[in-house]
């Protein structure tokens, strides 16, 4: 789950890291009040889950509360990359002496979180790492042992930062590492981490992302501290009707798993495919042989007839779909006969002839003899494991090209 900036700032604050006295506002009036409380120049920032706010005009500076209200009014109406803001953040305009960068991310090879720190904050860290590697400190932390302040100190000192700056930044990076682990984050970043003219350090902006698999056990912070509703799933793009329908069919029945996507696909060959990596392999195979997939889908985990039927129906109902290809890598858990029943039922219920509509059925494995009997009965073309995934995809493509 990705967080809005005002939520990320709150997460940082809860971990004991200093932040400025910011306000989250949903109306111009609220923004005026927040600016009055701050009592000085302010920054008004759009709260959207997308980058490029500054460029789009989603960040404005104000000297007075009235000006803050005016900016808030404009920004609240401003769409950025297709996203409308959920509000604005009103922040004091900080007197910055120096900007730093602090983050914690996963290192999948080391299988440990990695702390990163730079004394060149405010800009793209990847660029800093490439051009000024000596200005980026790195250090892994244990998944089991407590994070020691000294570990953060080592990472910061490696960039050449010393004196009171080192001593002030150290607990911030250590706290960031602890919150990363405790809150199941996959990204915890403060950029910029600012040293103000009075020598104090504050997080001026933060990016946080929590692992989806852990959302269920982080209820305390999500519901109680941040007030995020259970149904708030934060899609970073808007799902299509096809995607929403497939999701609903999947949720209605606990047996098996289906997943449907059509973002970026608009072909005429519907795909009911699966078994883990089989769907990736088959989508490539269809495209490489000149086929145009109408969707990407996955079916597996021994689905019910209703689920297989539901997915096939949604695929068939898509604009431009003429035929469907039903293909999987060799299955051991999913039953071939059940999938066959499901896809044939989908054709019949939509008034289509299964023999004409199903370009190819290639699911070898569990209960395949029973499946083949059903397919024979309806005259559907099928093949066994001696026909590779590549060739099965090729047959489907040839059939649909022959048809149109």
């Amino acid at each position, binding site marked *: 789950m990705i967080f809005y900036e005002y939520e990320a700032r709150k997460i940082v604050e809860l971990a004991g890291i200093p932040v400025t006295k910011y306000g989250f506002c949903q109306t111009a009036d609220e923004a005026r009040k927040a600016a009055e409380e701050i009592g000085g120049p302010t920054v008004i920032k759009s709260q959207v889950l997308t980058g490029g706010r500054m460029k789009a005009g989603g960040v404005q500076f104000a000297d007075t509360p009235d000006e803050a209200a005016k900016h808030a009014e404009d920004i609240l109406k401003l769409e950025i990359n297709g996203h409308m803001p959920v509000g604005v953040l009103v922040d004091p305009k900080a007197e910055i002496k120096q900007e730093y960068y602090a983050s914690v991310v*996963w290192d*999948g*090879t080391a*299988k*440990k*979180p990695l702390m990163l720190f730079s004394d060149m904050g405010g800009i793209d860290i990847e660029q800093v790492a490439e051009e000024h590697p000596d200005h980026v400190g790195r250090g892994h932390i*244990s*998944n*089991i042992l407590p994070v020691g302040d000294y570990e953060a100190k080592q990472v910061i000192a490696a960039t050449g930062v010393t004196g009171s700056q080192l001593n002030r930044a150290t607990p911030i990076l250590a706290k960031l590492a602890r919150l990363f*682990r405790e809150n*199941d984050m*996959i990204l915890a970043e403060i950029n910029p981490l600012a040293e103000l003219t009075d020598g104090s350090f504050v997080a001026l902006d933060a990016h946080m992302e929590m*692992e989806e*698999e*852990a959302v269920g*056990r982080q209820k305390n912070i999500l519901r109680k501290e941040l007030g995020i509703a259970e149904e708030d799933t934060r899609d*970073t*793009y808007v799902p299509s009707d096809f995607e929403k329908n497939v999701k609903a069919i999947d949720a209605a029945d606990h047996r098996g798993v289906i997943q449907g*996507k059509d*973002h*970026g696909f608009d072909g005429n060959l519907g795909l009911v495919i*699966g*078994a*883990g*990596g*089989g*769907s*990736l*392999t088959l*989508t*490539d*195979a269809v*495209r*490489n042989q000149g086929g145009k997939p109408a969707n*990407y889908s*996955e079916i*597996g985990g021994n689905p019910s007839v209703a689920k297989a039927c539901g997915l096939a129906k949604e695929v068939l109902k898509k604009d431009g779909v003429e035929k469907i290809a039903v293909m*999987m*890598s*060799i*299955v*051991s*858990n999913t039953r071939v006969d059940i999938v066959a029943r499901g896809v044939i039922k989908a054709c019949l219920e939509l008034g289509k002839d299964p023999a004409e509509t199903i370009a190819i059925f290639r699911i070898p*494995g*569990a209960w395949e003899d029973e499946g083949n009997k059903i397919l024979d009965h309806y005259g559907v073309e099928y093949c066994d*494991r*001696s026909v*590779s*995934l*590549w*060739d099965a995809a090729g047959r489907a493509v040839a059939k649909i090209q022959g048809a149109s």
Partner: protein
Amino acid sequence: MSILLNKDTTFIVQGITGREAVNLTKECLDYGSKIVGGVTPGRLGREVHGVPVFDTVAQAVESHGSAIDGSIVTVPPGFTKDAVVEAIANGIKLLVIVTERIPRGDVAEMVEFANLHDARIIGPNCLGLIVPEVCKMGGIGGPAKDAAKSYKPGVVGVMSRSGGMTTEISSSLTAAGLGVSTAVSIGGDAIIGSTYAELMPYFEADEQTEAIVIYTEPGGRMEAQLSEWKQENNSRLPIVAFMAGKFMDDEEMQGMSFGHAGTIVEGKEDSATEKIIRLEAAGIKVVERIDEIPEAVKERIER
């Protein structure tokens, strides 16, 4: 020979009374695997296909009378970490974690704990491993009669991020007369117990294995790690790789996630195109089509 498993390997099933676990236990027993116990807290005294059920791993070890080699862990995600640590604390050295949707922080913790105890984790989110006609540990290949169709003993070591594709590829190697030495479904998550590179030394030491086939997907640095391993270790084993999900490199697919949790393409570095370049630079053959794998292996082994 084989890697990690042999005909004498003993193991338990943690979470044995669950629906999937009951099936899996039968499949493994039918295939000839030695399951010496099962664990489900609160179910002491029951049996699953003749396998005694215990409340704790300690009880299973005590009942067996000597160390147990492995455990298949198939308990809900919220309990997996504790189950794995329990197994390792009771002397078990090989863990196959079947469970899906475990937060990666938990996986990383388990791996670090396993490293401290010289134990090895396969998975999570995997189907386990199989030594054809000897034993299998996990749901890999399905029921014994189906597994027998896809897996015949042979010379190729198989490692795959997709459980289903492990069997698909092994089946094609079996059909081509090459057969399989050991096949490992390593799991599709962003952080897993054993990567390709970490399993390579086992295959390298296994006389039966003459070549390696890997199935891989976009996401992560696992292929870069394998390429580095191959270049640094002067491996005797030719490696043939198949990369799925090339369509994800298209502009309009950026930021989308397909298939496994590990396939979210976060940057250019872990895209299919970049991975293929890295693998090929290390002398690993990347085949274009899935059906080209057996021929590519044949070309690279001395027969």
